[in-house]
């Protein structure tokens, strides 16, 4: 399949806990991006990490990239109920057109 894998498919945690989502892909990449989607709406871009970067932070978000393992992870620290959403990774190769993973559905209980 062109799509990689994201795990877990679903994640349910309590407010204040950390949430970790993983993404694996199959091709060489220029960059990898993470998006959030609330309730079947449009996607919101969260963070982009380039192939020569290993870690990137943005507020409560921390993204890592291991190109040797073709994998990335998104960590949301101190989660809030408002973080409840689906999270997608998308990897960008030579065509510069992102390919999306299957997504992780995150539920944060207040």
């Amino acid at each position, binding site marked *: 399949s062109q799509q990689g894998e994201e795990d877990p498919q679903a994640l349910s945690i309590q407010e204040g806990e950390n949430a970790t989502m993983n993404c694996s892909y199959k091709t060489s990449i220029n960059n990898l*991006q993470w*998006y959030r989607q609330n309730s*079947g709406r*449009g996607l*919101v*871009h969260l963070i*982009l990490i380039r192939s020569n970067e290993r870690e990137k932070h943005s507020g409560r978000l921390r993204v890592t990239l291991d190109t040797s393992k073709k994998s990335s992870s998104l960590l949301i620290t101190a989660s809030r109920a408002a973080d409840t959403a689906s999270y997608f990774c998308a990897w960008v190769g030579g065509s510069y*057109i992102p*390919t999306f993973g*299957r997504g992780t559905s995150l539920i944060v209980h207040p």
Partner: protein
Amino acid sequence: SAVISQKPSRDICQRGTSLTIQCQVDSQVTMMFWYRQQPGQSLTLIATANQGSEATYESGFVIDKFPISRPNLTFSTLTVSNMSPEDSSIYLCSVWQDYNEQFFGPGTRLTVL
């Protein structure tokens, strides 16, 4: 960042009819993309639309079913033709800035009865 609007935001259509979805961007962009997201699924690229040329369709999508127009650098339409219930999805347009970040419209939720 680009701001994208889509019309309609949602629609319920009868089998066999067609629906045209509009995508408007607040800045000029070269490449626009149309995606489909079936219920509970990830995004699948339908086609890439460049201004002044024919759209490029991904495997499994054809122009007769999903005709696309791109009359200028800020606007595009996607038509879902001869609809069936299997076409019930969210359709999203997106644009690409600086070959990095993609911006997405809010999506059009289509239900076909």
